[in-house]
């Protein structure tokens, strides 16, 4: 049992290097269980890399990482990711891919179900309920590649609901969506956090579509955290041109 004061994520002096470029430079971050943190910064500032370090798909060159009480190494990172819901930008999918929206949503439980275990009828049931929750149950049997970007992001959120994670990571989920879809996705993410109370990291560079209910905002610039505070304190200090 965790309480709100327990750290869900702890990054201590984390540095990530790609080629000769320092992408994250001695980053420190502590997120309590249940916190909703928005991470803002310009393209290339290191926001996505920070999320990748948290879910164990990128290993830091130096520093310590603890997520849900574990260190996400290359070998055990996949076990950690069973408890981490991740929604990225809407990718391009081949419309001829032989997979439906419902089959993608049910994959949210695959990691937790474990190897050699079959998909159970209750998993399909849960996937259908999640699709209804995000408002796209009518798309269940459509090929994944045939739906719009906004619908794809809703299906990704439904997949995360099926996964029932303790930690939610959103990597610019509203990118390349139209204005209406952007605000709908942000509201949906706020609603998920409100109902699940899962610790949430939400990355964006778009200040027009920030979640209203976030607890903290982190401002990243050139791989370093330059600001950390409540939205009403931090946002007025950030010059829009910096994004």
């Amino acid at each position, binding site marked *: 049992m965790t309480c709100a004061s327990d750290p869900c994520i702890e990054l201590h002096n984390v540095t990530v290097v790609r080629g000769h470029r320092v992408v994250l430079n001695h980053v420190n971050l502590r997120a309590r269980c249940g916190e909703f943190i928005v991470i803002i910064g310009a393209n290339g500032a290191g926001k996505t890399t920070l999320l990748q370090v948290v*879910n164990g*798909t990128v290993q830091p060159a130096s520093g310590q990482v603890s997520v849900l009480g574990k260190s996400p190494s290359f070998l055990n990172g*996949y*076990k*950690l*990711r*069973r*408890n*981490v*819901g*991740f929604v*990225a930008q809407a*990718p391009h*999918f081949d*419309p*001829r*891919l*032989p*997979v*439906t929206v*419902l*089959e*993608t949503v049910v*994959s*949210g*439980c*695959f*990691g*937790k*179900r474990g*190897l*050699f*275990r*079959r*998909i159970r*009828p209750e998993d*399909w*049931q849960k*996937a*259908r*309920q*999640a*699709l*209804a*929750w995000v408002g796209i*149950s009518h798309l*269940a*049997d*459509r*090929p*994944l590649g*045939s739906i719009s970007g906004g619908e794809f992001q809703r299906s*990704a959120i439904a*997949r995360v*609901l099926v*996964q029932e994670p303790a930690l939610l990571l959103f990597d610019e989920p509203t990118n390349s969506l139209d204005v209406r879809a952007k605000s709908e996705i942000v509201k949906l993410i706020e609603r998920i956090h409100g109902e699940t109370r899962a610790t949430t990291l939400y990355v964006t560079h778009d200040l027009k579509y920030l979640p209203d209910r976030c607890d903290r905002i982190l401002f990243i610039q050139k791989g370093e955290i330059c600001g950390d505070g409540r939205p009403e304190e931090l946002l007025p200090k950030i010059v829009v041109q910096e994004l």
Partner: protein
Amino acid sequence: MFSHSFLLNAALAGLFAGISCGIAGVFLVTTHLSFLGVCIAHAGFAGAILGIWLKIDPVISASVFSIAAAFAIGPLADKGELSPDTAAGIIFSLTIGLAFLFLGLMPGSRGEALSLFWGGILTANSKDLLLLSFVTLGTLVIVALFYKEIVAVLCHRSIAVAVGIPAVFVLYLLFVWSAIIIAVSLRIVGGLLIYSLVVNPAAAAFQLTYRIKYLFILSALFGVLSTWVGLFVSYFLDLPAGASIVIVSTVIFAVALFISPKRKTISDLDPVREILPPHNGDSKELK
């Protein structure tokens, strides 16, 4: 026709090779890595020729070469910042060069080595059938045991990684097993022809369904149909068996392409509901 025991053996070999190559084709076609199949086939071809030269079992040497090729492509693509297809092309050129080098250096008769070009389904013996049946059984067991992981990795690898599936392990398992399937089927189908039996049935099945479960079933079915109809045509028209099998598999693909419901535009995709049965389960609000 089946009063000849060699034809019965050929039909059984066709059954096993058709199922396993058809399923391997799904692994490669769905991941858009069809050229990996060419590369693995030619690596196996080079390995088998080396095995014949060094008087070791060609199936073993072909398997080693095929598996090595499957493992080399990923790191080569990463290190060289190349697309997997370019990396496969480099390995392909190396293995085809090695195959001809081994052929050139081989002393004495090269008849057995040259027969690997077009295979010998009509000379399938009990050892071939045993190996092929073992590999086919293994293929079905792997698909059954790892079905949900395979579906996730084949269709949306980034999502598979995100939900905590050991995607790299599953992907390499599929590539290694594809390499074994190709190496074992090489003597029967031939180094130049096996690629067609791997890719054509899967590509034909891909035209006809939006469900990956049916993709596996149709691909295996088309693989078996290719070998059996090819054998039939070869027997009655007195044509080379390997070439007949390949041409039949291509004809099956052409027919599938012609009748494919995927020829419709995206805006017409709603009627797909009519050809795909919905899953069971009610849509209720999540509590």
